[in-house]
């Protein structure tokens, strides 16, 4: 009996402790406002937590309120989805793409920010193309944040060794010649790993489809008469991609066997000439040693036909939204607007987080490591031109998009034909349009 008594006592003790180990804060401090972010990297978590705390404090000071902040991180779409279908919703949160915010808005889960957008003049600050992504039926439903684009990185030393010049690789023949040379010298021409991150396949397809013809992509997604995924142009593009895979140009034929970390490691260990990744890549470049950093160069992907010049398929990296259930809409809008402050943009850069999609003072770009500075030059240059392309995750309908990067592997594996793949994409696209998907695709210049 004594033993049981002891056990019961222990249980009671642990139970009491765990009761106090709850996550709710006592209401001796003011109302709690919860911010949920999807960042996982330590530096980014710290910065965002610090910034939001500062904003809340300043809001409290200005308005005589006493909100206390609860900041949680590492919440990806699966967690957000679960939370938003329950009663434990965060007040503001970040989600992955405009397609997601469309879905959420369609289910009535987002706070209509239109009046705040007017109050804070967002239409004047934010890039037009980004701003249009935030609107659903003309109402502003989210704050687009972070612009990322698809570029291609290369190893400067291997370039030199092969006698190539990055600046002069602009067309398809030049690109394929470079890849052939790399392959013959026993290097992997283009590195890409999608084993643990299947979305990596869509990085490349974003570029290739965008390069097939931006206007074409826009009309196809919108379901315009006479345009379909099954068109010859797309079939040619997929065939091109498949040919690269078959020749071993694409990650030695194992782009879906290698993980994204493998791809990074192989590239930084001088085994590959090109690495396909977007403008978020600095997050793994910054921890490298200086000598390794300086080996990396960046450029826009070469053209694949005569239709499009090299350009940068764009995406918004994040959509910051407010829950329609929030009890503190003013604070929510205030916090979102503060993310657009000029002077914090350089802090975002330092930790490799996204930047606000607006014109940013050049001074914020100073003090960056060379390769990152190069990248922003490429990016800002492309944006200044006003020409950009369409990434899959920002602009395509969700199911079509998932099939895009899952199905392509079956094509590469010769399990389905290109026609079957494209037909399925067309079918899904049509289905989603019928079920109410609303494409928001600003026209490219």
């Amino acid at each position, binding site marked *: 009996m004594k033993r049981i008594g002891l056990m019961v006592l222990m249980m009671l003790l*642990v139970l009491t*402790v765990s009761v106090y180990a709850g996550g709710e804060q006592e209401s001796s401090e003011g109302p709690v406002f919860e911010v949920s972010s999807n960042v996982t990297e330590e530096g980014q978590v710290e910065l965002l937590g610090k910034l939001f705390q500062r904003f809340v404090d300043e809001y409290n000071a200005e308005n005589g309120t006493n909100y206390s902040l609860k900041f949680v991180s590492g919440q990806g779409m699966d967690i957000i989805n679960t939370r938003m279908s*329950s009663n434990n919703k965060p007040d503001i949160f970040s989600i992955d793409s405009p397609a997601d915010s469309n879905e959420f808005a369609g289910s009535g889960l987002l706070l209509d920010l239109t009046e705040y957008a007017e109050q804070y003049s967002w239409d004047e600050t934010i890039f037009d193309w980004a701003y249009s992504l935030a609107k659903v039926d003309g109402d502003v439903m989210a704050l687009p944040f972070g612009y990322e684009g698809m570029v291609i990185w290369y190893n400067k030393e291997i370039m030199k060794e092969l006698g190539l010049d990055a600046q002069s690789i602009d067309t398809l023949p030049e690109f394929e010649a470079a890849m052939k040379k790399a392959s013959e010298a026993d290097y992997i021409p283009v590195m890409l790993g999608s084993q643990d991150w299947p979305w990596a396949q869509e990085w490349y397809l974003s570029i290739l489809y965008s390069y097939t013809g931006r206007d074409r992509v826009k009309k196809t997604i919108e379901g315009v008469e006479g345009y379909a995924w099954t068109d010859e142009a797309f079939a040619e593009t997929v065939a091109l991609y498949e040919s690269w895979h078959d020749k071993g140009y694409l990650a030695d034929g194992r782009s879906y066997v290698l993980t994204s970390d493998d791809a990074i490691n192989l590239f930084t260990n001088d085994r590959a000439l090109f690495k396909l990744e977007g403008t978020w890549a600095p997050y793994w470049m910054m921890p490298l040693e200086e000598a390794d950093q300086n080996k990396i160069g960046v450029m826009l992907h070469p053209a694949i036909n005569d239709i499009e010049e090299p350009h940068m398929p764009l995406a918004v990296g994040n959509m910051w939204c407010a829950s329609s259930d929030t009890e503190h809409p003013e604070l929510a809008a205030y916090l979102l607007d503060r993310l657009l402050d000029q002077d914090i943009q350089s802090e975002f850069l330092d930790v490799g987080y996204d930047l606000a999609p607006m014109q940013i003072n050049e001074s914020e770009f100073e003090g960056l490591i060379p390769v990152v500075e190069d990248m922003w030059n490429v990016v800002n240059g492309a944006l200044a031109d006003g020409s950009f392309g369409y990434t899959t995750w920002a602009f395509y309908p969700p199911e079509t998009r998932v099939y895009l990067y899952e199905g392509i592997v079956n094509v590469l594996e010769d399990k389905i034909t290109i026609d079957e793949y494209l037909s399925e994409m067309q079918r899904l696209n049509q289905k989603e349009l019928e079920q109410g998907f609303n494409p928001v695709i600003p026209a490219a210049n």
Partner: protein
Amino acid sequence: MSVWRRLNHIFVYSFLCLVALLQLSPLLATLFNSFRSTKDITKFPIGLPTQYNLENYIEAWRVGEYTRAFANSIIVSSVSTISVVLMAIIAGFFLARSNFKIKDYIITYFGVALSIPVFAFLVPVYFSFSELGLVDHLIGLVLLFIAINMPFNILLSRTYILGIPRELDESATMDGCSVYQIIWNIIFPISKPIITTIALIVFVTTWNEFTVANTFLQSPELKTASTKYVLFVGERGSDLSLVYTAGIVTMLPIVAVFIALQNYFIEGMTTGSIK
């Protein structure tokens, strides 16, 4: 005869050692790699470390905020374990011994309950718990863990108790013991092997569980060790040595607990229960 015995002995032990080596080699490789630098690892995947610096460990511990995470994991796992053990022995006993009408239905129920995948109830339970304020709270997680681990361990305990001869409790009943006295004074001591087993299983399962814990705990200060590891590695995955180091750091406490638990309970283990 004795030579044959000796040879048999050697053969058996060599086999056991070989299997042990195979089981441990991935862990040993991980341990060694945690001390090597990423550059070395990319050059050759396994090998002995050239130096033993603990920087990586301190870094991994700090970044992962492991102290708090371990405290959380200990609370969650301990409470779950004790609860499930108690329920398993009690339910296991009655389902093995007693003869009440719905007994068979309940046994079948728990068997069928094993076939319910986590995703069948994850989201609805999250919804209900959020109404009750049980999300983002260690208690909510514990309650769910207990429910998840009940069926298997109750059935396991029942199977074991079926193997305990009835004469024991029958003689106790003759002596005038009440049912619960029988459970505490006879069944419990004899069931040490299965109690250890169940305790180990529940503790380890709840410690390592990721999917449910990640969904039900939001606040960073509540997160358990397994959740921390996944997030940590997700971001720094390309730094191979850090991946291995973080693995060791996350593993070490549970391995230590395991070694401690098993020694403590197995002390008096004897073969056969007639004694």
